[in-house]
């Protein structure tokens, strides 16, 4: 099947599923279809279609699965945010209070912003290899973005983590944009240094130990991550940056020793973080035994676990559960909210969607003919993968909570926009991969050309 047709077909499926879910919420909670349902159907269809046209115009050979998968996740997120809006609205009605402005509307507005920036990335970055030129610019940008929330007037703390920058009415999370900048830097830097970093000094227990001076960059990344943890109290972001760096270091050098050393440094940081910071200790404590703290510090996790359990195999059904009991259900705990109403079946589907997204990203990296593109694609995919594992693992008590948002699902404009920009970059790289290397001049010539597309360099 032609990629274009496949993508369009998948998008229609996404649109139907998303629309049915949305209607289900209103039917279950309010007993009627949303008043503006027709407009919503047309609007969501139009946005999906515009994205599709943009991709097929600007990156015609791009992977046809990435966009529909991300769009499906985005729609499910919107549905759950809307569902939680309805719960707030009903509670306000019962209590005779003014209903809070619906977050789903805000999130939908951010979808439009994301669509614009998605288009801009595909339009401006005609060739991902050009990004390699900005390796060190990206480093500076990334570090500045990471430090921005610490600037006294600009930065704001929300819920204990100093992650936000406020500019007038707008607030955004620069660490989201830093994800992209630093991934570009990691890829560009490692492409240049990978020969040196792969050099083995001696072998210990079958592991090649790198030269001492090559430890520098890893240590810097480690210290930066520790800094983020210490000054911004953001365990998740710190973990993610360090994780992506170690992964790329391993992929670039093929040296397992880097993984072991990275894991060792991570363990050290974890111990240090545990000993130094109360909030890290608290999270471990809650993770080990949430039930004891069910009414105070562990309330959120316990509510999430109650919700997941009440959802059972097939969920309570959209609008039929009580996800509003989970504090921050729209952001950090959206996975628990979805798990309650869509059940284990729904959660497995969501995990599968993410797995497909990451797998397609890695495949893009594999198929890429230049090492920078490979590392960039693998880096971006790993950012998604780590976030998903850390957030879904966190709310389901597989690992301690870290406070990251789930890509595409969680409420939050900056994350949504940046995630779509990352998808745009992946699409750009995959378009490059799948584009025929030589354009056939004529039909006769085309017959004689032996081209195999997608083979490694």
């Amino acid at each position: 099947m032609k990629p274009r047709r496949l993508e369009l077909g998948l998008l229609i499926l996404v649109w139907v599923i998303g629309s049915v879910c949305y209607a289900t919420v209103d039917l279950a909670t309010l007993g009627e279809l949303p008043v503006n349902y027709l407009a919503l159907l047309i609007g969501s269809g139009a946005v999906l279609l515009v994205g599709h046209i943009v991709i097929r115009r600007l990156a015609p050979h791009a992977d046809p699965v990435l966009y529909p998968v991300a769009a499906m996740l985005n729609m499910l997120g919107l549905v759950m945010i809307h569902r939680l809006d309805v719960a707030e609205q009903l509670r306000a009605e019962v209590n005779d209070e003014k209903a809070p402005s619906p977050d789903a509307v805000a999130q939908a507005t951010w979808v439009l912003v994301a669509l614009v920036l998605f288009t801009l990335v595909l339009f401006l970055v005609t060739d991902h290899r050009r990004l390699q030129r900005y390796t060190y610019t990206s480093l500076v940008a990334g570090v500045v973005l990471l430090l921005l929330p610490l600037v006294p007037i600009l930065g704001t703390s929300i819920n204990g983590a100093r992650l936000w920058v406020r500019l007038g009415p707008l607030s955004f999370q620069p660490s989201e944009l830093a994800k992209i900048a630093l991934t570009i830097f990691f890829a560009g830097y490692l492409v240049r240094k990978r020969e040196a970093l792969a050099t083995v000094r001696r072998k210990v227990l079958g592991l090649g130990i790198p030269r001492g001076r090559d430890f520098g960059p890893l240590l810097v990344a480690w210290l930066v991550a520790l800094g983020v943890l210490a000054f911004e109290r953001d365990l998740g972001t710190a973990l993610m940056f360090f994780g992506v760096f170690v992964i790329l270091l391993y992929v670039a050098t093929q040296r397992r020793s880097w993984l072991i050393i990275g894991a060792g440094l991570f363990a050290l940081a974890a111990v240090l973080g545990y000993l130094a910071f109360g909030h890290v200790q608290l999270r471990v404590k809650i993770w080990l035994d949430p039930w004891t703290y069910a009414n105070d510090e562990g309330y959120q996790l316990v509510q999430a676990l109650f919700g997941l359990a009440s959802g059972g195999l097939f969920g309570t059904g959209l609008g039929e559960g009580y996800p509003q009991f989970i504090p921050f259900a729209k952001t950090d705990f959206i996975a628990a909210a979805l798990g309650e109403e869509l059940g284990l079946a729904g959660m497995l589907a969501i995990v599968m969607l993410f797995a497909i997204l990451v797998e397609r990203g890695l495949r893009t990296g594999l198929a890429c003919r230049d090492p920078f593109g490979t590392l960039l694609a693998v880096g971006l995919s790993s950012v998604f993968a780590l976030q998903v594992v850390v957030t879904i693992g966190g709310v389901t008590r597989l690992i301690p909570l870290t406070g990251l948002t789930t890509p595409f699902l969680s409420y939050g404009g900056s994350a949504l926009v940046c995630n779509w920009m990352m998808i745009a970059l992946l699409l750009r790289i995959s378009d490059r991969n799948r584009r025929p290397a030589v354009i056939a001049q004529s039909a006769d010539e085309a017959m004689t050309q032996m081209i195999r597309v997608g083979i490694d360099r």
Partner: protein
Amino acid sequence: MIRAIRRLGWVFGILSILLSINLTFQQFILAPKINAQPGNQRTVLAEYERERGPILVGTKPVARSVATPKQTFKFLRTYSDGVLYAPATGFYSSLYGSTGLERTENEILSGNDPRLFVDRIEQLVAGRVPEGGAVQTTLVASAQKAAASGLGDNIGSVTAIDPKTGAILALVQSPSFDPNGLSTHDAAAAQDYYEQLEADPDKPLLNRPLVQTIPPGSTFKLVTAAAALEAGYEPDSSVPGPALYPLPGSTKSLPNWFRGPCGPNDTTTLAEALAVSCNTAFAYLGNELGADALRTQSNKFGFESSFDVPMTAATSRFPDDPDDAQTAMSAIGQFDVAATSLQMAMVTASIANQGVTMYPYLVNQVLAPDLTVLSQTQPREFERAMTEQNAGKLMGMMVRVVSSGTGSNARISGVNVGGKTGTAETGAGRPNIAWFVAAAPAEDPQVAVAVAVENTGQPEVSGNQVAAPIARAVIEAVLQR
């Protein structure tokens, strides 16, 4: 790089499998345990998602669930005549759990009962939310109302039983509470009301007729009389009835309530002793028969047994090892004898039912949501307490109590009412308890009733003055039903 990326793909694949396994644990394997965790309000709320079945008195629902659209709780439990029926229905609260039939019949009311399985399948196929079944009580609305209006603002309880079946016809207490105040979804209001009820010294939340054990006073003379008849006494057997009965092994003497002898030459008959509630004659009989005989007799009426009606009633007690003085006091329902009003109604019912004690019960039928009968309670015999002849003799003696003795206020024209008054002392400075137990009509008993009014300060006459009119009203209500 290819190999490393492939490995990375494997690692991410394994991580997604780990996530899935963990989700399966949380949502499927551990879910029943997590759902049962204390403080899991979702489990409570789940009960409110379906229409809870009604509790019926006759065909009229006294407790039912009303849909409350758009609220977190999708149904509100509402009670009509809540205060009147609270001793039977109990309450159903998201904050304080449930009591009474709401608690014991929860399986059927909530729709979880296996007997509703067929309905559940049908509802599942039809896509309907399952509903609960209905519980029809044995209560008679008019008897319930007569008892409540008779008690008025007094503190006390009334229990009426169908002597032939053991079906509970009235279960009333004062003060009672309004279960609507606890089932409300306004948590603050429910909490205020609950705390107010808890703080009330008159304990409105206590199920007086079923779990409050108090000294039965002279109504216990029925048990002593039954034991005497079973031991060979006749109603006209003469027994000593002096003004004072010296308690054996003690310097104290037991007086009659009217401060005189019960008959000429300090002698009376068993029937006459019961009619005038002669303390000295029954104290004498108690010592003659012995504590063991009294205990055996009382146990045959249901003392020392626990009854699930289906709420578990308190066990009524006869003292374990009383000395002679204590036995004499026990024979007139004092010392450590303690009974519920349910128990005294059972004693009366047993005598009226030709000596057979029946298991008391409050649920007549259990109905499916479509009102087909799922189960009908069959009356069960607890024990034969006395021979049919002796029971008939004792019933005759009770009729005499009402027609010419201390129980004159229970008289109903055209109906032979048998009864017994009682006044129990509960300790120095504490108010006496006025008792009246009765059964009617004597020749074909339809109802046995026990009334206990706990806040009277008056002597023996109070049984007749305060409690007998209530018993009469209940009997009339049942007979006119």
